[in-house]
């Protein structure tokens, strides 16, 4: 075909469209690149804007918290600053012991219940299991202060209203443990379900094929197989429970003495921070809240880090 012949052919609509596309792309290139650079810069600014407050929190914590750390701070109980010694705030041993006992007692109930409920969710698609799955989802998003009201109604005054006087009721560590346990179970339940579903079906079936009952398979095959995942679930629920203030506000009594007995009135770290910072008339006590806050954050981060390390190791093994 000669050049003249090609030129005499009717114009191809597809070719025209291509040309149009090429032309538009070339014409808008400058504008699109500029817009892109602008928006990318905005995203970068957002990153910086996000980092500033988050880093500021950490700096404040370290700067103001570390100065309060001393042996006495961790071994004594709160004292009232006097005119002669305005910086004498005592220590936070009561809050550390209180938090440890309250969360430990809460876990005592929450871990078995959460894991068993998780086994049910992982193994059953019954109506009840589906409802519980949705309920667990809702519970983890519910404001935790509602649990404070619940624990107050049920444990602190509830039994009195019905004329039943059980030992250990009233303001007590137990009431706080109860509230935290209700908070922890749905977290453990959901994470345990995921961990338990991760155990390969072939192993379960092998166990069943050997004639083992489901309970035996659950105990000896599924739970050991999912152990790292379960541990991660439990640790994450710990980290959440240790930092919760709202459910404890009016149920544990906020005592100033060290006690290991959960039937007594107790203190807790987040509650003590709240009260020192918001209600204390002494500037030194308000400032000392930083010392305890730093300790609380370090504790929560260590628990979280442990959970993450276990989870990461698990993922490596799976691969």
């Amino acid at each position, binding site marked *: 075909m000669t050049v003249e012949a090609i030129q005499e052919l009717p114009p191809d609509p597809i070719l025209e469209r291509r040309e149009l596309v090429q032309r538009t792309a070339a014409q808008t290139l400058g504008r*699109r690149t500029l817009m*892109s650079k*602008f928006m*990318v810069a*905005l995203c970068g*600014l*957002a*990153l910086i*804007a*996000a980092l500033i407050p*988050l880093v500021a*929190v950490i700096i*404040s*914590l370290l700067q103001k918290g570390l100065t309060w750390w001393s042996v006495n701070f961790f071994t004594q109980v709160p004292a009232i600053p006097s005119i002669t010694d305005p910086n004498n705030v005592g220590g936070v041993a009561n809050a550390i012991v209180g938090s440890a006992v309250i969360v430990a007692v809460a876990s005592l109930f929450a871990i078995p219940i959460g894991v*068993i*409920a998780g086994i049910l969710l992982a*193994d059953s698609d019954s109506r*009840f*299991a589906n409802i*519980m799955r949705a*309920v667990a989802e809702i*519970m983890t*998003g*519910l*404001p935790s*202060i*509602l649990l*404070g009201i*619940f624990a*107050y*109604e*049920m444990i602190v005054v509830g039994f009195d209203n019905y004329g039943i006087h059980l030992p250990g009721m009233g303001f007590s560590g137990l009431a706080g443990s109860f509230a935290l346990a209700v908070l922890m*179970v749905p977290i453990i339940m959901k994470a345990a379900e995921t961990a338990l579903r991760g155990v390969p079906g072939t192993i379960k079936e*092998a*166990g069943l094929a*050997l*004639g*083992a*009952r489901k*309970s*035996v398979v659950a105990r*000896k*095959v599924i739970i*050991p197989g999912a152990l790292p995942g379960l541990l991660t679930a439990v640790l994450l629920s710990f980290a959440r429970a240790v*930092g*919760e*203030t*709202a459910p404890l*506000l*009016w149920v544990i009594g906020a005592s100033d003495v060290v006690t290991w007995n959960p039937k007594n009135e107790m203190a807790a770290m987040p509650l003590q*921070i*709240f009260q020192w*910072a*918001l209600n204390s008339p002494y500037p030194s006590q308000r400032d000392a*809240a930083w010392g305890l*806050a730093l300790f*609380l954050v370090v504790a*929560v981060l260590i628990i*979280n880090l442990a959970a993450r390390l276990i989870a990461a190791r698990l993922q490596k*093994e799976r691969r």
Partner: protein
Amino acid sequence: MSEVLINTSPQASQGPDLAEKPKRFSAKSDSAYWIVLYGVTGLFALVLVAFLLSIIGSSIPAWRSSGLKLIFGTTWDPNNDVFGALPLIAGTVESTLIALFLAIPIGLGTALAIVHMIPRRFRVFFSSLVELLAAVPSVVYGLWGLLVVAPWFQVTVQPALEKATGNHWPFSGQEEGVSLLLAGFILFVMVLPLVVALSRDVIAVVPNDQVEGALSLGASQWQVLRKVVLPGARTGIIGAITLATARALGETVAVAMVIGGNPLFPHSTFSTAATLASTIALEFAEATPAQVAALGALAVILMAMTAFVNWVGRRMVQRAAIRAGGK
């Protein structure tokens, strides 16, 4: 996983039931298993029913005496037994809106920057920083807000905003530091790690083929992010925003520490105000019986609002998923 198999199978086969009583291999023998599972889970379900009943039950006297005034009444005055939650609802919604107004653009921009713009070695650092900050207890954010940010707001931010807007609404009034604006800002800082962490996860899993396909067609980087990455991650982003909203609505102690606890309609963002949760937190411990019932009613309203936000979020996720599936 093979390790687990080796470890557990000998134990399982040594189980006393297996060799000696093969007859146990029947559907019936599983009944104990199901009884324990359903029994324990059912027990917890009962606790949750008790939870619901106790919250609603504690509020019944208040609904009886005040009726719908509890929701639509404009005065909250516990000393005279006048309980109207509307100013508190307004405080809750407004502080949440301030937080979302800041957290959504900054959070999404940060997530995009972490996944698509910064070098890989910084990515891990930023990601873990954000995740660890999401775990910091709320009382610590409250402490920081009250002792560090409030003075800064009073001396620097509020005068600057007043100057910039000429002392007009919504930046007018007393400069006290503690205010609706501060509560919104602290909520923003608190939900930011949540928004970043969750939306980063979904942005990272948008298929690379699609991103590279769009790039090879000549799309600019922003066009790729806007037309491919964000739509691909839409359901997850909506989910993240829903969670952040619910968290901001229900946040208690941090807000109680920085909002001033003043149950009046906030007339500007500089006013002290109160939210549903902060009012419960600050008043419950020393409340009269009538007030306890009214605070229970606040809890019911708060629960309903959180449930509503979750429901809307779920509906939007479903709709977005259907649309994405239809393509």
